[in-house]
Every structure is written in structure tokens, then in C-alpha cells.
């Protein structure tokens, strides 16, 4: 599998920490010290439009038309649609005609999409796969809850994968835990509903998630290097889920690797769920930092609790 192009789209609206202090009992300093986040983007329209722009940017970078795609994998947790899938909506918007499906691996969704894509490409069932991550966590949080709403932003980002190059290595996992990070739908109006469960905005147990993230990410990175028979120093870039700068820094420090190998943009976008990793990949790619043959490790974690790490040759 080879990623031949990346693309992204972020909302125009930039909301800085200071602006949040207008309606939340928080401060720029508190948010920055605990998360590294200074601002986030919040979309004000429909997520599918942002997703379509990201897909079109990736297609343009690849020099492909939407009609040449033969599969769309879309990682998404929340959109205005319960059904149809976001990928079906985006497929129509960009003028593609291929099959498509959504996956929900929460913040680790991009790595899950990569793993599914790698298997399909290896089997030669599909030749050109669009991996699209589009997320609007700002619609899942309680904007009165200062412990969660300050953390998130919206974004869409994409990559196009083809069956060339070396097979990537993956380390995927789930440690089932529906209380560390969760949000509930409303029960609807089914007259037979017996539970008193109500719609619940996102709840996240920060300390528990931090510990899980730091421990699983460093273990998975070391596992992948072991599988590849290389040392950590032979990895050119570690691209980690951009949830919190403190988590990225903790993993880096535990692995004793230099900061320049851990690019980060959480400062500008906050946690954009599964879109964060391809958004960072697109940024690093467009900056020309990635050279053919570079060894890159992607590592993410999310609600589930899901984990996904991938070692690939650029």
C-alpha cells in the first residue's frame, strides 16, 4: 500500500481560548497548560460539505477524478445523518460512483481505515481507495462543560491509497470500556422503551484516558519497531493522535526521541477526533517533510477504547 496523496479542509471559523472565557469559567492559561490547545476551528454548516472539500483536495493532489475511485472508507462518529452513511452523501457530492462505507473507530478511525484499505489493496479487490475522516466533535460536547468542550474542534482530512510499495505493519486493539469516553443518543419516542436513559453529551475521564493513551501508544510503537526489526531511531516521523500536547510529549519523552520527530498541530486545531491524524499527515506532506522511503509511524487511540498504530514506508 502506498499513500499517493493527502488533502484536508478545516472550517473558516477560528475560536481562540480567550473567546471561550466569555461563556465558560476557564482561562487561556488553564487550557494551554493542560492541553497545549490555543484555538480550534468550528464549522457552521453541514459536515458533508467539509468532508467533500477534503476529498476533492486529496483527489486534486493525486491527479485523479472522483470517478476513478473504487472505494471510499469514511471514518466518522457524528454527523447530521444517522442514516445514510456520511460516505454515501459525500460520494454523491464529489461525483464518485464507487461503493463506500463508514467506520466508527472513534479517534483511531484513520488507522482503522488504513488497515481495511491495506487488506483490500493487498487482495487487489480495489486499486484506488479514498480514506476520508470527517468529524464534528463540537456537536457532541456540552458547551457548558468546561472540562470537555474546550478540547475539541472540527475538521475533515483525506488520503488516497493504491496497491504499490511495501505492506504496512499494524497493531490494532480494543480494550472495551464504555465509561472512559462516551456519549448517548436520545431514546427516541418508542412507546416500548423501558430505560430512562437520556441523550448525554460527551463524557471523558481525562486521567484514565491519558494513562491508557500514553501506555498503549508507546507500547504499540515499540511493538511495531520490533516487528519491523528496526530501532526507534530509524523512524523518521511519529504522527500521534492530536488529542492533547501533553500526551504527545509524554509518549515522546518515554520513548526518548527528539521533538522534531513528533510534528504536532493540536495547538491550532484542538482534538478533531479521527480527522486529526490525516490532517497532520496532510500538513507534514504539504510542507515537503516526507521523503520517499521515509519510515512513518501513525498511532492513535479513542473511545472504545480503541487503539491503532501503523508503520509504513512513505
Amino acid at each position, binding site marked *: 500500500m502506498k499513500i499517493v496523496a493527502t488533502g484536508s479542509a478545516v472550517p473558516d471559523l477560528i475560536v481562540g481560548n480567550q473567546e471561550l472565557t466569555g461563556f465558560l469559567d476557564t482561562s487561556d492559561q488553564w487550557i494551554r497548560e*493542560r492541553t497545549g490547545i490555543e484555538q480550534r476551528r468550528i464549522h457552521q454548516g453541514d459536515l458533508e460539505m467539509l468532508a467533500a472539500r477534503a476529498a476533492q483536495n486529496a483527489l486534486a493532489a493525486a491527479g485523479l477524478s472522483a470517478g476513478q475511485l473504487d472505494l471510499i472508507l469514511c471514518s466518522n462518529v457524528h454527523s447530521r445523518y444517522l442514516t445514510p452513511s456520511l460516505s454515501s452523501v459525500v460520494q454523491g457530492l464529489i461525483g464518485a460512483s464507487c461503493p463506500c462505507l463508514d467506520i466508527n473507530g472513534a479517534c483511531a478511525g484513520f488507522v482503522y481505515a488504513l488497515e481495511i484499505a491495506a487488506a483490500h489493496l493487498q487482495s487487489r479487490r480495489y486499486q484506488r481507495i479514498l480514506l476520508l475522516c470527517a468529524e464534528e466533535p463540537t456537536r457532541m460536547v456540552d458547551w457548558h462543560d468546561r472540562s470537555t468542550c474546550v478540547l475539541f474542534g472540527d475538521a475533515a482530512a483525506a488520503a488516497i491509497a493504491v496497491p504499490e510499495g511495501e505492506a504496512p505493519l499494524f497493531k490494532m486493539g480494543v480494550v472495551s470500556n464504555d465509561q472512559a469516553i462516551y456519549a448517548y443518543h436520545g431514546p427516541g419516542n418508542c412507546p416500548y422503551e423501558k430505560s430512562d436513559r437520556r441523550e448525554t453529551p460527551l463524557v471523558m475521564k*481525562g*486521567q*484514565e484516558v491519558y494513562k491508557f493513551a*500514553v501506555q498503549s501508544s508507546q507500547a504499540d510503537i515499540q511493538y511495531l519497531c520490533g516487528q519491523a526489526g528496526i530501532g526507534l531511531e530509524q523512524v523518521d516521523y511519529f504522527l500521534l493522535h492530536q488529542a492533547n500536547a501533553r500526551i504527545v510529549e509524554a509518549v515522546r519523552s518515554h520513548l526518548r526521541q527528539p521533538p522534531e520527530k513528533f510534528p504536532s498541530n493540536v495547538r491550532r486545531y484542538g482534538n478533531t477526533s479521527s480527522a486529526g491524524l490525516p490532517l497532520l499527515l496532510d500538513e507534514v506532506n504539504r510542507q515537503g517533510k516526507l521523503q520517499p522511503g521515509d519510515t512513518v509511524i501513525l498511532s492513535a487511540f479513542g473511545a472504545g477504547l480503541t487503539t491503532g498504530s501503523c508503520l509504513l514506508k512513505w
Partner: protein
Amino acid sequence: MIFETVAKILGEYKDVDPATITRDATFASLGLDSLDTVEIVMSLEDAFGIEIDMEQSLQNVEDLVKLIEAKKA
């Protein structure tokens, strides 16, 4: 012995003399926020060969010492 190890790990993390760390010192008074506390917990897990879940409320050094004593018992 457990308290001494906890104080040593806290001292290393904050770059302060472990002798100045008391049992009743709160994490906040040591300049540790909630995520620093998790880092301390992870170091203590390695030092004592135990697992500490983050469900419980840990406010001060004594809370940590008691928790480790219970796990080691």
C-alpha cells in the same frame, strides 16, 4: 519505605528535594495538575510492580501511600 519511594519519585518529577515532601502535601500544593498526577502514578506502577486505576480520587501524598500499601498487602 513506600513513602520514601513516593517522595523520591515526586522529587525527581518536580526537581525538588524529596526531604521537603510531606505526607499531607496535596498534589496541587506540589504544583501537580491532574495529568502530572497520572505521570506520577505510572512511575509508581513501574517502581512497585502494581497497577493503579485512575478511578479513585487521589488528592495528596498520603492517598498514594495508602493505595500502594493496600495493593502491596
